[in-house]
């Protein structure tokens, strides 16, 4: 019995809708067609905002030589070896090295300074029907051994093109397994049969969803960034926001100023992210969850380059997200 069957066996009896007899549709199909026509143009005429349209941006995986500073490959692999068919066994992950590792200063003054000096980025001068985001993530989910000592996750890349109404396309590519420590690598190499195989999905059409671009107004932005739940929640919200929207310069500066006023952020100075890019970093420790959240910003444009989560005891990577490219475009693919 495989995992899916076991899941059905376990959960099936607890299905709250299992014995419910669904009443026939209260409205005929024809009425829904008319409703669709009344609220939106038909197929081929997507409802979009007239000028600025959201799109998720993709880009190239800029794994530069500098990535050696944070990626420790083994089996003679280069940092950008993605573990394709027949590829080697994966990559060990080490934490990003901080400029201010011990006793880091409060981040507020540095974030305000950064907010005041950021410049336009390439997409600030572009427009398009779609936002485009190219991201690389690792750690969601992490697979753990039964005793919870050994961990592995497959890195994955996503490219998402999304219009203002949420429609668009997404492609996901599964990359090689990566490990937070050598013991995990040794354990999972024995468990994971065969070489890592790249798993590329075709374009997945995205159904409509509500998208609300982030506001530049500080009070609205504080709410959007979940500041009321603390610095940890705010850092996660920043990661989600940059992965979904093309954030204009004024809003980027406003985000930095909002974060500057949230207690808990510490300044980590210059760092190199996992794509080899130079950035400036802030962290927040959430001792109650034994977790540290790391945000890496572009020192010139204020864009978010990366968001990472680490466990504190021991210090170990538990998830990372690299935002490799963001832009506006009229074309999918």
């Amino acid at each position, binding site marked *: 019995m495989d995992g899916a069957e076991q899941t059905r066996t376990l959960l099936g009896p607890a299905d709250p809708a299992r014995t419910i007899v669904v009443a026939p549709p209260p409205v005929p199909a024809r009425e829904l067609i008319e409703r669709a026509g009344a609220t939106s143009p038909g197929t081929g005429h997507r409802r979009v905002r007239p000028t600025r349209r959201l799109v998720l941006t993709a880009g190239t995986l800029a794994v530069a030589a500098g990535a050696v500073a944070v990626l420790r490959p083994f089996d003679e692999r280069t940092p950008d070896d993605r573990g394709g068919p027949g590829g080697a066994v994966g990559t060990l992950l080490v934490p990003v090295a901080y400029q201010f590792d011990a006793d880091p200063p409060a981040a507020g003054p540095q974030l305000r300074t950064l907010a005041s000096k950021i410049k336009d980025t390439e997409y600030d001068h572009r427009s398009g029907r779609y936002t485009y985001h190219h991201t690389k993530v690792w750690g969601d*989910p992490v697979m753990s051994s039964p005793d919870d000592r050994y961990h592995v996750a497959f890195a994955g890349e996503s490219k998402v093109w999304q219009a203002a109404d949420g429609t668009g396309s997404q492609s996901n590519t599964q990359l090689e397994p990566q490990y937070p420590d050598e013991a995990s690598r040794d354990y999972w190499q024995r468990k994971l049969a065969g070489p890592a195989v790249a*798993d590329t*999905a075709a374009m997945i059409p995205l*159904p409509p969803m509500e998208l609300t671009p982030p506001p530049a107004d500080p009070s609205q932005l504080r709410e959007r960034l979940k500041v009321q739940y603390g610095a940890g929640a705010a850092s996660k919200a920043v990661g989600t926001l940059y992965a979904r929207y093309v954030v204009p310069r004024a809003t980027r500066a406003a985000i930095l100023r909002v974060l500057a006023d949230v207690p808990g952020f510490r300044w980590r100075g210059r760092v190199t992210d996992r794509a080899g890019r130079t950035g400036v970093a802030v962290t927040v420790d959430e001792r109650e969850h034994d977790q540290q959240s790391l945000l890496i910003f572009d020192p010139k444009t204020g864009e978010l380059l990366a968001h990472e989560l680490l466990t504190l005891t021991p210090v170990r990577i538990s998830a990372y997200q690299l935002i490799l490219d963001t832009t506006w475009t009229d074309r999918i693919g």
Partner: protein
Amino acid sequence: MGVRVGPPGKRDEGWFTSLYAAEYAHIVRYGLRRLADSDASAELAQEVFVVAWRRRGEVPDRSLPWLYGVARRLLANQWRSRRAAPDLLPIAHADLTRVADPSGADRTLGVADVRAALATLNDLDQEILRLVGWEELTVAEAAQVLGCTRATAAVRLHRARRRLAEAMSDPPARFRRPMLATTREDL
């Protein structure tokens, strides 16, 4: 795994009527499993099919996972817009309240234990378990709903099952409100 987009040719009213008749009940049940409101579930299903007609050129031949994906997005928006209203509650939370009742009336019900344990998991864990356990999707189909690769969905299912087992083996300590989940694949 790829998603084959159906030919736009035969997507006429007859096709839509057949789709509506065949899948309406599945979408209502999807809503019922996540909402404590049958009327809201019926409304959700109608909205899903309005979207399906609007985007009929993109509905795959194997349409149910695509329809569940639409429902999932609509539901997320619905929850966001009606957060203050008490009429839309995750059904698992409603059950959690019942199970946590100190009267212990449900203690002998394994079903209640499973639901209560499920309620302690984060949304992504719950959703992969529901899609496979209740909607009876394959892992590849669940991946389509969640917008991730099949392999990622398989790992997520593995981990969610482990967490569910842990929650069931340690009930009182684990029956608490779920933590704010970190979302990384909501793209």
